[in-house]
């Protein structure tokens, strides 16, 4: 089976956590957000009006503050029981957030999960 990385919002992190819904074939996801803070090996992205997500970066991750980025990563537990975050596998820089409509992305996420048969294999 080929690699599938469903697009999600912060509210979906739970259902893609390895501990939930054991049958799920993938915990690798895509998420879109604006880089709002950088702290060495972690960073935070702001996902429109849908809250923030903490990223666990790779040594070779090069993020820039204020840029819209698409993250491919795995849902993971944050250190010190601070909830869920995303362990980064790769990022794509989409530049100025003003050039992208986050609401369109929200629609894409909704379509992805509502009509999942054309997006990913799920339970």
């Amino acid at each position, binding site marked *: 089976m080929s690699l599938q990385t469903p697009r999600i919002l912060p509210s979906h992190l739970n259902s893609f956590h390895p501990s939930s819904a054991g049958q799920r074939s993938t915990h690798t996801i895509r998420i879109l957000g604006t880089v709002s803070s950088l702290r060495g090996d972690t960073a935070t992205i702001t996902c429109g009006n849908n809250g923030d997500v903490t990223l666990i970066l790779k040594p070779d991750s090069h993020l820039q503050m204020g840029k819209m980025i698409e993250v491919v990563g795995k849902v993971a537990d944050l250190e010190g029981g601070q909830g869920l975050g995303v362990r980064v596998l790769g990022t794509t820089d989409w530049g100025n957030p003003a050039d*992208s409509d986050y609401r*369109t992305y929200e*629609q894409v996420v909704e*379509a992805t999960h509502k*009509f999942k048969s054309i997006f990913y294999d799920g339970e």
Partner: protein
Amino acid sequence: MDGGYNSYGGGGGGGFVSGETNSPSGGRSENRDNKTLRPVTVKQIADATQPYPEAPFQIDGAEVNHVLFVGQVRNISSQSTNITYKIDDGTGEIEVKKWVDTATRDSMDTDEKGPGDGKSEVVLNGYARVFGAIKTFSNKRYVGAHSVRPLSNLNELHAHLLESTAVHLFFTRGPPGGAGPGNAAGGDAVMGGADDYSGAGPNKALMGVSPLAKKIYNLLKSETQDDAGMEMQHIASRLSLPTMDVARAGEELLNAGIIFTTMNEHTWAILEY
């Protein structure tokens, strides 16, 4: 004047009509279907079925020839005759082959590491838009690409995914609307978006019919005053359409059991049940 001619053709004998069957409009639907360019996700390409070997591929039961998709370039391998890309759109991965055309070799060179103009360059891990046909080679599915170009606007990616969803829903659930008269036009059906589908529930039979047949249904629904229904000529003039087309679409509705004939065979009313 125009109406008079049409009434002669429609109401008259078969001799007049026979010329029509050879007209482009007669054979159109089948030819056009084979040449569709459909927006899809990579998963849909992987899930596409073939009724028998060498048959055209089908997605959601509809034949597809050319497909259009967007994804991230995970690998580029240049050979002397072709460039093979691996494209990942988050729903799956697929190999894309673009044959190197000697006439356009100059521009193709920019796909490699050389000093390109920066515009037509498809880069590793960048996004690309691909337009091509689904092919198989020794049981491996790939896309024979006519065009692979870089994509730099995120909205284009997201719009594509929504468009693929809308077309998928069009084929699995039928055109959107059915409730609103404004939704009858074919163009709107494709671009209508997922929200429009909620209204389509009650009219299951209507989903299978052509946009024109739907238009006639909507007219009958909104205009019919009594049980007698509406005459074909009258429908044609109300919709400013050739009587032939109206007759054909009416036939479709009759066969689907959506309308029935009243005073004579050219007067129709909606079959309520």
